[in-house]
């Protein structure tokens, strides 16, 4: 379970998160929508401790992320995150990309890591690209590789930050299909996305962020069907 309790966060004078309260249960798929600059990415990077918070608490399975005593590297093993930018390690093949952290972080043997990497790459449809360098992959393939790389760590939670936003339109579908597959397998996920149709289909709940505040959160039928927050109404009108 991920518990976010009254989290505040500023960059200098800019208040980016203004008291966020949110709980994501095991197995839940939460999508986060909202305008650019509303604090969505910042929230995700706070959850895995890449960013500090000013006040409040974030608990992952009861462990306080920003407590001094927390081993962040250990915590990050169970929180996978995939970003908007394609982050393949360019000097490693696709297979090696997916093996590296398994070997160095989880201390898996080379053969175990390879078996798991092959399994995950199969899963995301990259079985024929194992020995290829990332520069030879399309953006969609690179994103699927990044998803496989995160999944190979056997995470309990997956965070996705606009993973399709930097892709050519014709490549968006293949990545969303991968996310749908994960959702159907019961993975606990927080997906920041601009794909409203996708959000409507896969989410258990959808949260709308506006200027550092979570202005509305509800089941997709309700949030899209009968939005209450005026800013959300504007936002939805603008995206259609």
């Amino acid at each position, binding site marked *: 379970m991920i518990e976010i309790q009254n989290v505040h966060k500023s960059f200098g004078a800019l208040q980016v998160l203004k008291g966020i309260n949110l709980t994501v249960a095991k197995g839940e798929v939460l999508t986060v929508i909202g305008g650019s600059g509303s604090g969505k990415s910042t929230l995700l*990077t706070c959850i895995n401790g*890449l960013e500090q918070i000013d006040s409040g608490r974030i608990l992952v399975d009861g462990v306080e992320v920003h407590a001094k005593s927390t081993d962040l590297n250990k915590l*990050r093993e169970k929180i996978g995150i995939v*970003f908007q930018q394609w*982050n393949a*390690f360019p*000097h490693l093949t696709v297979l090696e990309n997916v093996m*590296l*952290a398994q070997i160095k972080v989880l201390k898996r043997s080379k053969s175990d890591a390879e078996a798991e990497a092959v399994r995950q790459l199969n899963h995301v449809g990259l079985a024929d690209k194992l020995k290829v360098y990332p520069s030879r992959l399309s953006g969609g393939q690179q994103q699927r590789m*990044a998803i496989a790389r995160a999944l190979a760590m056997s995470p309990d939670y997956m965070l996705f930050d606009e993973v399709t936003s930097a892709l050519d339109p014709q490549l968006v579908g293949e990545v969303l299909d991968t996310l749908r597959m994960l959702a159907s397998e019961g993975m606990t996920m927080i997906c920041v996305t601009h794909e409203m149709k996708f959000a409507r289909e896969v989410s258990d709940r959808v949260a709308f962020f506006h200027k550092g505040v979570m202005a509305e959160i509800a089941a997709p039928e309700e949030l899209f069907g009968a939005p209450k927050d005026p800013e959300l109404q504007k936002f939805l009108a603008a995206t259609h």
Partner: protein
Amino acid sequence: MFDTALTAKDLVFLAQGAGMTLFVTAISVFFGTIMGIIFGVIRYQIGPWWAAPLTFVLDVFRSIPLLIQLVLANAFVTTVLGLRVSGFTVACSVLSLYTAAYCSEIVRGGIEAVPPTLRRAARSLGMTWGQDMTYVVLPLATRVALPSWIGLALGVMKDSALVYIVQVVELLKSTQTLITRLQEPLFLLMICGLFYFLISFPIARFGGYLEKRWSND
């Protein structure tokens, strides 16, 4: 042209000088690079403000002509400290620091060329700072830095000619000795140049080979 007084023995003498040039260069580039990596990582990690004293010292090594550094270091070690240290040791130490000063600049630039988003992805996978450095940042920085580093190594090889000032007989000094004796400057300088070429060329080619191999295509 071909009635030269140069004997086979003289050629061996030149080859020994070339060997010394190569030896001094290899030692200096080896230790200079290790120190350069350490200084470069430190400078990058602690930021320009905290690194200012280190940067200043390295800048001193970069801006004072090598000849002066060699003479001063030699005088300092032998006269002021009263140590019995060979010219060879002084030469290698000074050249190593000189190399380290340039190398740390190259390393810092290489590290800065690695996108922060890539490092964030590595850390997100649970990698420690050291693992990120070792398996992601330094391999990528190496690729960026390689051409400059090869240039540095070749430059140090040529600059090593100056170590004659602390009584190390390397290639250029050997050549000058022969010129004084045989009075055939042009011919001897040509041979000297040929020797420099012979030891530089493989290094340059090796750099080209690595660059090609690392281009991942």
